[in-house]
């Protein structure tokens, strides 16, 4: 069991809700003062920044978030793209297009197809690649991921994965093969809700998933990405747990850089409609809150969000963006016939160069490359 589970168990959900609900604008202002003086807030202060009271002070929060981001990251945005390898999945997550019960076109890309797609991505200057797959080890298991990363590592200075959770030795194999980052979202930290939205399949194991980030860090991954799927649960409460998870990892796995993503549920096959929709205003509050709590963490925004909102969030906490994304295996190939089903519908479908232009027009520079696998120890 992850020691972080003990931290989760020690939390009192009723008190968390009360703290969030009862936070005052006076507390928010005092906390903003603390942050602007350069002091580091305590993890539990997240409750104040995600409170309804803080929502009333969004403008000063945003100003401070912008200043903090500028100091640590300068005027830059990192760029990446996902490459979906397979949409086969043995899980039945109620919100996901890859749900085993959805009657959709399934596909696992072969090595040749993956290479072709990778080249198309690389030709758009993207150098940070995220390999994504549903949970179906028989279709897209460790061997395929390992072979894929060996194939691609010469082409991409940085490779990450967003796949099913694994044990440390398996993560270590992928690290050795050239993967340097792991994204694995808990989806929701609420254990009861987790069981409801993951009714069957291996993903039902809340604890195993919860421990995945630290198993990945123990295997050596440089980047660990966390997130809650926004819309499943009250985002304010999720933020509290997510913050504690990030703080726990930073303390115990101090050589890995933690990043936080803000995936809002998008329409997908299966037609799930979010129980707790998160408005734009609330999303911005959450992003600003995490920036103020974690001045050094990468904050990631994908093409799930519309172009206009993404443009407006440049510099306001967000430091990393995907662009030109396709969310189905084979999605970049633009083939004739029946394409495979995507995980969700992309909202910002602008091509990469258009996103880059937009970033530059905001006075920010695009960072394509930020590491090089050649720098790593070779097995």
């Amino acid at each position: 069991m992850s020691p972080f589970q003990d931290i989760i168990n020690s939390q009192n959900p009723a008190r968390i809700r009360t703290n969030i609900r009862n936070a005052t604008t006076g507390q928010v202002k005092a906390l903003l003062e603390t942050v602007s003086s350069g002091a580091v807030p305590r993890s539990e202060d997240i409750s104040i920044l995600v409170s309804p009271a803080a929502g009333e002070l969004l403008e000063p929060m945003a100003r401070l978030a912008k200043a903090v981001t500028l100091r640590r990251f300068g005027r830059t945005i990192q760029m990446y793209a996902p490459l979906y390898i397979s949409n086969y999945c043995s899980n039945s997550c109620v919100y996901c297009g890859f749900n085993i019960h959805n009657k959709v076109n399934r596909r696992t890309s072969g090595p040749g197809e993956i290479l072709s797609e990778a080249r198309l991505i690389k030709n758009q200057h993207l150098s940070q690649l995220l390999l994504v797959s549903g949970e179906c080890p028989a279709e897209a298991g460790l061997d395929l991921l390992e072979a894929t990363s060996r194939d691609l590592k010469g082409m991409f200075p940085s490779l990450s994965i967003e796949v099913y959770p694994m044990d440390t030795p398996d993560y270590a194999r992928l690290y050795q093969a050239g993967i340097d980052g792991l994204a694995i979202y808990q989806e929701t930290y609420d254990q009861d809700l987790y069981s409801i939205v993951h009714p069957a399949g291996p993903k039902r194991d809340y604890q195993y998933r919860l421990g995945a980030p630290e198993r990945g860090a123990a295997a050596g991954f440089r980047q660990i990405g966390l997130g809650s799927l926004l819309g499943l649960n009250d985002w304010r409460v999720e933020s509290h747990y997510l913050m504690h998870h990030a703080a726990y990892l930073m303390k115990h796995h101090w050589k890995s850089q933690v990043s936080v993503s803000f995936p809002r549920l998008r329409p997908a096959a299966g037609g799930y409609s979010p129980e707790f929709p998160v408005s734009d205003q609330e999303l911005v509050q959450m992003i600003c809150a995490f920036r103020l709590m974690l001045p050094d963490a990468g904050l990631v925004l994908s093409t799930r969000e519309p172009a206009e909102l993404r443009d407006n969030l440049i510099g306001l906490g967000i430091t990393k963006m995907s662009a030109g994304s396709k969310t189905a295996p084979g999605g970049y190939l633009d083939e004739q016939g029946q394409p495979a089903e995507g995980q969700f519908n992309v909202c910002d479908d602008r091509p990469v160069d258009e996103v880059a232009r937009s970033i530059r027009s905001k006075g920010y520079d695009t960072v394509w490359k930020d590491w090089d696998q050649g720098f790593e120890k070779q097995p």
Partner: protein
Amino acid sequence: MLKPLIIAGREIRSRLFLGTGKFSSSAVMARALEASGAEIVTVALRRVEFDNPQDDIIAHIDQKKYLLLPNTSGARDAEEAVRIARLARAASGWNWLKLEVTPEPNYLLPDPVETLKAAEILIKEGFIVLPYINADPVLAKRLQEAGCAAVMPLGSPIGSGRGIKTADQIRIIIAQATVPVVVDAGLGLPSHICQAFELGADAVLLNTAVAAAQDPVQMARSFKLAVESSLAGLEAGPMSEGEAASASSPLTGFLR
């Protein structure tokens, strides 16, 4: 007259070194470099596309004019730092190196053990090594013994702009130094530069203070002036600092 700044046998014209990260574009970075008057310019090797001869950052730095001091930022241990340095030299022939081993990605504080280990290896391989270190006088001595061409103690964490919080330690490093001491990291304002030189630093290195300013080019110019002002003040021979006001007509004058 101040003695010229000589690092590894090369006379360095400007005592202001500038970093190239965090700028809104390489064009702005190039203008800021120009305005700063810097000669030594650091570049994060992890951001350089070695397979691209038109790499955006490198293309904007005129290597006839500037001495490139590539850095190993992002290295988590000595082995990675050494690999980064070797790859960069193999690709581009760069021999000068700002050694950074920062395993902790948040405060980016340097690892003293791994830094020393890497320095020993790289110096044997012929690199000119300038290590980024915490303001630790004994570590500075160890690195000098290992053959480092300068030491670069931090004023406060990278990018914090908090100024020199390690003044007492830096003073000891300078007092004991046999190589130039470059105060690096944490400098946010022109006044911080003055403080560094008044402590006796040989040079300063800046990045965020310029790149994150509203007008980076203007800020680069202001830092250049701060360096000039500090050095002119030192050359002028400052008065000594007294405990209290001293009367122009001495009270014990009658004893003469």
